[in-house]
């Protein structure tokens, strides 16, 4: 698949990681959801972010996509991200496949996908990307005129990922792609994710399904109660039984 965006330049990183977060704090009213999270993702890497329910995984992704305001260092493509709003972050190449596959239910599959390329003017490039997405998820191609709500849960997740890909992002954020989906479809979706990763995409993958997430990623961070708990190579973390027991809520 073709990832190069027609007009957005490949970021010049000057040796920095594509995404660098340090001491990130997020408050929801009086609740402190993130209490100084740090992580980085190098260009071309696939990194997993795991942790129990409520650990702050989704909040971290929302902060990166600028859907919640945050304090602390947030750098993307060697520049400050905190000054951008969600619209600018999306245009700068950050794409989020939101939690609970938040697709647009009454819009058609095609409309959902085309919204992923919102703000991009190049119609022929959009058609090309759409073809790439359909090649990745043939089930979507068969259902282009159906409304999003008529898709099965797994298909909706495919649509959410496909929509995120439509912007030809530089950084793909995926929030629990396996949530509430039959194991067979989860397998299919993770195959697609590894296809996307192989094409050179940088991915930050949030999952509660630790086994799947660790096997799909090279490195991983474990969050607990809004703070970093562990980090390391996914292979190592997968071998340690205590990780699951201690940090992942079972």
């Amino acid at each position, binding site marked *: 698949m073709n990832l190069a965006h027609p007009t957005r330049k490949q970021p010049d990183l000057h040796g920095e990681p594509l995404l660098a977060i340090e001491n990130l704090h997020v408050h929801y009213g009086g609740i402190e959801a993130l209490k100084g999270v740090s992580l980085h993702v190098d260009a071309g890497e696939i990194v997993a972010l795991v942790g129990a329910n409520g650990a702050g995984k989704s909040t971290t992704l929302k902060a990166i996509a600028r859907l919640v305001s945050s304090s602390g260092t947030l750098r993307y493509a060697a520049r400050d991200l905190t000054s951008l709003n969600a619209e600018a972050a999306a245009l700068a190449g950050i794409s989020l496949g939101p939690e609970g596959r938040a697709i647009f239910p009454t*819009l058609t599959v095609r409309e959902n996908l*085309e*919204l992923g390329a919102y703000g991009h003017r190049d119609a022929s490039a959009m058609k090309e990307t759409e073809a790439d997405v359909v090649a990745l998820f043939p089930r979507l191609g068969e259902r*282009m005129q159906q409304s999003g709500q008529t898709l099965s849960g797994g298909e909706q997740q495919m649509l959410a990922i496909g929509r995120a890909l439509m912007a030809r992002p530089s950084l793909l954020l995926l929030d629990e792609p396996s949530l509430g989906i039959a194991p067979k479809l989860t397998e299919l979706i993770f195959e697609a994710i590894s296809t996307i990763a192989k094409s050179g995409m940088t991915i930050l993958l949030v999952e509660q399904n630790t086994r799947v997430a660790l096997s799909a990623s090279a490195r991983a961070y474990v969050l607990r109660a809004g703070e970093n708990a562990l980090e390391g190579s996914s292979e190592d973390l997968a071998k340690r039984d205590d990780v699951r027991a201690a940090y992942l809520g079972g």
Partner: protein
Amino acid sequence: MKSARGLLVALAIALLADFTLDRVIPDSSVRQLAMLACCNMVVALSLNVINGMAGQFSIGHAGFLALGAYVAAIVASHVHLALGGGDVTFARSLIVVPASLALAALVAGAFGFLVGLPSLRLRGDYLAIVTLGFAEIVRLVIATARAGDQTWLAKLGGQTGYAGAEDAGIPLYAGPFWIIGITVLAIVVAWRLKMSGWGRSIRALREDEIAAAAVGVDPTRAKVTAFVVSAAGGGIAGGMLAIMRDGTPIVQPDSFGFQATFDAVTMVILGGSGSVSGAVVGSLIITLSVKAIELLQATDAVQALKASYESLDLNALRMMIYAALLVTLMILRPDGIFGEREIRLFSRAKRDRADSTRA
């Protein structure tokens, strides 16, 4: 480009109608009904942007109609005078109508911006109350300006209405060419808006604000522009009503009470919120039902009844018919006649289908 050709054909037909409609349809009340149906389509199409596409609930559309009607009436009257008064001619309408309706759209659109701002924070019932309040303020401000006052507001004629500069009656410049032409244009614009990137973005926003923001839709801008577009369209519709040929040469505040909003909302809901085809069909049904009851009201039998029961008013019957119609519809088709679907006339639909079978 097929639709561009279609548009030209429609405009040619409208032009022809402008000069021949009087002979084709000699009964002026029938002509008036046809023109009214067109105006109502624009009313419904414009309200559909807010209540259908953007998924907000405005019950203040009459306010935008009123602004548009008064502005268009004033502009038309004064431009007419500036041109030296006299006959209403087609050549002059080429100046008067665009000027009146453009200003009507501008003023209504500006108020749409103001009313749209609360929509950023309010939803559902609360926003509905704001819009209703706005419409009532517009109507009451116009209605309560007293005739003796020296303010410019008093020139609007208060409760009796505005009948043109020097009370000579509003010059009714918008003949069938304008009314039909603008209606066709409004349908095309509404269709294109819905299918455009902007249309998709406000429909997406209606369904999931976070997800829409994540793909780069700016919720603030999208919501406010939806209000401005809807209000400007309402302004044009109000202007059309005020200066349409075969209409009445006076605009009155009472034409823009809650009933007018209610009719508009019914048109949209009946047809199917969010559907352009629905707005067209819904407005036709409502326009015709109003007329049907008027005709019924005028029959000898009803007039005879009225002689013995003075308070008899079949307009009350209209509300009962609407209620029954709406309740039945909500049971059988809770999303309106069309839902959000469309009658597919345009080429894009066919192309889409061809695409998807190939894929």
